[in-house]
């Protein structure tokens, strides 16, 4: 942040009263305040809330804190006997690490100017004693996370603690607002506004598609009136220098690992001081890290960083990075946000960034100096990704943004918030409803829905009112809702938060074979000693392993030994090949914008020259053998292969929407008598295979593509499937945990994720058959449609294509179908059947069974 201010900043700044101490400090540094910093100060002094949109390296953080520092400088020294003032400025960031980083960077100028300002952090890691002291002796500037703000607000002393608040600085606002954490924060800010009506907000954001969404988000909304915060936009610095990797190696048809490009990437690392290598998934990070080390002849210090690694290991990497001790780091999005990473002079992005804005934000990591061009290399992992990378690069050049929309506030978060507010003080439903609606994302919340949320918090909100006597909150004669018992507040605080992690187990390295100890046998000290925890791993992944299986983690090949208690035991399997790929974590679908650009590129032959020759040749072959997909058309190819018949379509709408589409099409093909067997979806295309010749059926008019792809498939078929789908059940689990239907932890019983007492699948089944309109079902449906299933996007596709479907009945597979066909067998095939076919295949003959179970003589009696 501040230390990177350039020598000669803009001098046309509006006159604003900067205290002498600040003027001196800038002068001593040989700096001048930048125009946007002074402009923001001016607006703040005028009592206005402001959204500051600026690229990385523009001194955004100093701009955000300048109003607070100036105000604190002017503040009178507290006289003896006066009540200590509460927190003056709240800084909220999405990452704990970011709060810590800011503390370091902000303390420096504060010390240098000798300002009377106390700065402290408060995160989940802050020790209890320090939290307690912060309550009685609040710092002037508190650096914290959304969860902590909600927790502080749930206490009785919240009005006093926040009563002197002047500013709230929100960092990385663009990333906060689109998540449920953002929804929770929006509600918390509404409460803060009630305590301090003239509270001012300063939002710091990267460039977004719709700045007005954030401007509304920052200020209190009133019914029938749109209110916007002030806006300061700082133009981009030097255009980044982005290229697509040009190597001689053959670009693979499919896959996500870009192994082919590692020698070229290694060369780039050698040629630069510090390289940041971004990948989309943890499995990519693991694999590429291993690949790079296998060719690391100069033993360059190359490190690995992703969210599943043990915290201490991650901190080590971050520190080494800060000291410029590393030449390269392979990282997932854990490093996405605005942490300062030393002198990175090259960003390599492996795989398509999947979105134009995501590319811009990641490239921003390189070279935190706004006036120097960042340097980045895109490494497409397959041929379609070449097209995507080119489109992202073009969009970046034009400054186009495709950040996701802010959307509506979630109902499960609302339920959690209502309970938190009741923990703080009794509430009047009318007042709380008005307060909630002052948050822009809850402005459209109907009163009826709000009342159902209150009912849910009180006693589960079921149509069958049988839990009233156990209620958590109850309406008193004075018209206020209040807690029925103080333990409810304790229960709330244990479970507050919106980050629901998949159940994870710690991975511990042990001696080979150590996991096979019998249960109940005491752990052998010799085996346990030195058993280091390497990180965390999803239980779902472990369930697919049997002892002896090998997989990659923390840059090592590990052998799965077994599970004991809450730990996964592994041993090092040096020299062997990891057998099981590790899929979980962070796959984004391509944004609508980028998909559209790829379709245009395919349809416009004049653009093919810009692509690598092997890719343009491939497109040429496709045109010759079949037709080009792209533009507004939807190409559907059918061809036989082996014993089966295939249908391949190219909607380019991202994997999530494609999976939903596949499932719906399979249902229809089933009804049409095509006997579909399975399907697979990629980001670009879908492939469905069947026993009957679908091409012939289409040509004979036994079924029609317009009917198959008609929009009404989003009606009953979707609803029926939604309710059964595991995606839906998983979404239900998240909503149930956030809303507090079930608990992550119960006082006195610290439960880990894998021990939730009642399976949410069972609760879901009961609720679905008895009260399908329950508020948690409503929340689930909303999330599933917009999130995991991408129904909105599928809807747009189906609306676009009627009359534009082109069918090509081929004798054999087309060049463009190769990538999706190669996915078959690699990606888990989702099928809608209930698993009965699998059980039937393995079922034993009953006579054999009886013989086996009871010996030969028993068969006589059956």
């Amino acid at each position, binding site marked *: 942040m501040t230390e990177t201010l350039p020598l000669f900043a803009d001098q046309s700044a509006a006159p604003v009263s900067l205290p002498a101490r600040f003027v001196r400090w800038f002068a001593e540094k040989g700096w001048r305040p930048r125009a946007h910093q002074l402009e923001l100060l001016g607006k703040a002094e005028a009592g206005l809330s402001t959204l500051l949109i600026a690229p990385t390296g523009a001194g955004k953080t100093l701009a955000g804190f300048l109003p607070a520092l100036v105000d604190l400088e002017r503040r009178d020294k507290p006289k003896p006997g006066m009540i200590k003032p509460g927190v003056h400025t709240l800084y909220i960031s999405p990452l704990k690490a970011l709060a810590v980083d800011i503390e370091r960077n902000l303390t420096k100028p504060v010390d240098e100017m000798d300002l009377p300002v106390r700065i402290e952090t408060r995160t989940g890691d802050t020790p209890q004693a320090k939290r307690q002291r912060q309550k009685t002796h609040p710092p002037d500037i508190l650096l914290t996370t959304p969860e902590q703000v909600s927790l502080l607000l749930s206490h009785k002393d919240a009005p006093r603690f926040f009563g002197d608040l002047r500013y709230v600085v929100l960092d990385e606002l663009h990333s906060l607002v689109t998540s449920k954490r953002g929804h929770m924060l929006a509600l918390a800010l509404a409460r803060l506004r009630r305590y301090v009506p003239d509270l001012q907000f300063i939002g710091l954001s990267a460039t977004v598609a719709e700045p007005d969404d954030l401007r509304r988000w920052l200020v209190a909304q009133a019914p029938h009136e749109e209110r916007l915060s002030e806006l300061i936009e700082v133009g981009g610095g030097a255009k980044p220098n982005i290229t697509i990797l040009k190597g001689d190696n053959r670009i693979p048809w499919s896959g996500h690992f870009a192994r082919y490009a590692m020698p070229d990437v290694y060369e780039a690392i050698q040629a630069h001081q510090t390289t940041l290598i971004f990948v989309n998934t943890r499995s990519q990070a693991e694999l590429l890290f291993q690949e790079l080390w296998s060719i690391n002849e100069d033993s360059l210090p190359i490190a690995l960083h992703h969210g599943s690694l043990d915290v201490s290991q991650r901190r080590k990497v971050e520190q080494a990075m800060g000291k410029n001790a590393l030449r390269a780091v392979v990282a997932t999005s854990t490093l996405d946000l605005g942490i300062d990473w030393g002198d990175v002079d090259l960003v390599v992005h492996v795989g398509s960034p999947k979105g134009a804005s995501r590319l811009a934000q990641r490239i921003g990591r390189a070279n935190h100096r706004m006036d120097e061009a960042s340097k980045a290399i895109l490494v497409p992992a397959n041929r379609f990704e070449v097209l995507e990378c080119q489109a992202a690069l073009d969009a970046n050049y034009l400054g186009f943004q495709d950040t996701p929309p802010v959307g509506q506030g979630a109902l499960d978060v609302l339920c959690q918030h209502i309970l938190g507010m009741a923990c703080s003080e009794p509430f009047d439903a009318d007042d709380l409803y008005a307060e909630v609606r002052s948050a822009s994302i809850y402005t459209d919340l109907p009163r009826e829905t709000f009342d159902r949320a209150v009912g849910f918090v009180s006693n589960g909100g079921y149509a069958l009112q049988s839990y009233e006597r156990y209620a958590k909150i109850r309406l008193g004669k004075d018209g206020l809702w209040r807690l029925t018992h103080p333990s409810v507040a304790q229960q709330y605080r244990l479970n507050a938060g919106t980050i629901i992690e998949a159940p994870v187990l710690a991975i511990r390295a042990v001696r080979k074979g150590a996991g096979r100890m019998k249960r109940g046998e005491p752990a052998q000290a010799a085996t346990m000693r030195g058993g280091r925890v390497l990180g965390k791993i999803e239980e779902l992944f472990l369930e697919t392993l049997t002892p002896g299986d090998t997989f990659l983690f923390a840059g090592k090949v590990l052998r799965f030994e077994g599970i004991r208690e809450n730990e996964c035991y592994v041993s090092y399997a040096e020299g062997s090949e990891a057998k099981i790929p590790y899929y979980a974590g962070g796959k984004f679908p391509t944004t609508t914008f980028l998909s559209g650009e790829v379709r245009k590129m395919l349809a416009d032959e004049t653009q093919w020259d810009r692509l690598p020759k092997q890719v343009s040749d491939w497109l040429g072959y496709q045109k010759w053998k079949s037709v080009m997909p792209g533009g507004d058309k939807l190409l559907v190819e059918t061809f036989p292969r082996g014993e089966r018949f295939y249908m391949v379509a190219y909607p380019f709408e991202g994997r999530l929407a494609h999976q939903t589409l596949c499932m719906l099409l399979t249902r229809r093909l089933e009804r049409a008598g095509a006997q579909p067997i399975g399907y697979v979806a990629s980001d670009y295309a879908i492939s469905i295979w069947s026993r009957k010749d679908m091409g012939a059926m289409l040509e004979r008019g036994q079924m029609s593509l317009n009917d198959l792809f008609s929009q009404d498939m989003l009606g009953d078929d979707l609803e029926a499937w939604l309710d059964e789908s595991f995606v839906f059940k998983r979404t239900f689990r998240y909503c149930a945990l956030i809303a507090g239907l079930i608990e992550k932890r119960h006082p006195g019983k610290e439960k880990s994720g894998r021990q939730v007492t009642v399976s949410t699948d069972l609760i879901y089944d009961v609720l679905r058959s008895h009260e399908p309109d329950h508020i948690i079902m409503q929340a689930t449906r909303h999330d599933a449609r917009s999130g995991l299933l991408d129904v909105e996007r599928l809807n747009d596709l189906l609306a676009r294509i009627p009359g534009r479907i082109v069918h090509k009945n081929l004798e054999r597979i087309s060049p463009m179908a190769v990538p999706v066909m190669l996915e078959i067998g690699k990606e888990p095939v989702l099928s809608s059947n209930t698993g009965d076919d699998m059980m039937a295949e393995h079922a034993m003959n*009953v006579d054999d069974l009886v013989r086996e179970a009871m010996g030969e003589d028993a068969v006589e009696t059956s």
Partner: protein
Amino acid sequence: MRPALKTITDVESGAALASSFAGEEVLFDPAGILFFPSLRLLVVSDLHLEKASSFARKRIFLPPYDTAATLTRLAALVAKYDPAIIVSLGDSFHDEEAALRLSSDTRRAIETLVVGRDMVWVTGNHDPHPPAGCPGDTVDELAVSGITFRHIAQRLFGGPEISGHYHPAAVLRARGKKVRRNCFACDGQRMVMPAFGVLTGGLPISHPEVSALFDRARLCAFMLGSNQVYPISANDLVGMPSKRSKARG
């Protein structure tokens, strides 16, 4: 991934698998109950009635429909098999006060269920005493036709024995896919029944506490499919401890 709650139609139309146990013909119903035709005996286990309201006392508000849903399913099976005796193998009620919390409707449903039949409540760890105000006899164990019925299997008992308690489930894996279903676990001498209550989950029979009860070589999981029961050899299940005796031919 479990199949959704079975509808009553599913329960009615499920095809039972006929086999034998301790010389008696027995039907394994995919809804998770056993029926002995020659004895006209229906066995169900781990109903866990009033589980949701039990949680509500801790202010965790699960949908209050579990008791009615469980009893409706049971009623459909009683109508299907018309047993003379119904044995509920323990943990019929989720806690000791559960029977007192029954609504008048669900209480009536239990009364209707047992009209003209013998109802036997076997005690369980959740319900060690007779259920207040419910018709039927309460026993700790029961012996019928040489078979002992009790809630928790006795490891040292030679059998034949039928019990509940563990809520057995089995996980089958093939070609990268997994199917997990509640199941009857049986080695010919001992049988552990699946839990019947709609809010009851399952514990994989690979868990040492369950697998230790059985003769590993003869252990079979009768997995509950949508409308059929599938007998699956323990060798095909995920996570089973390796076998000591010889493999299946």
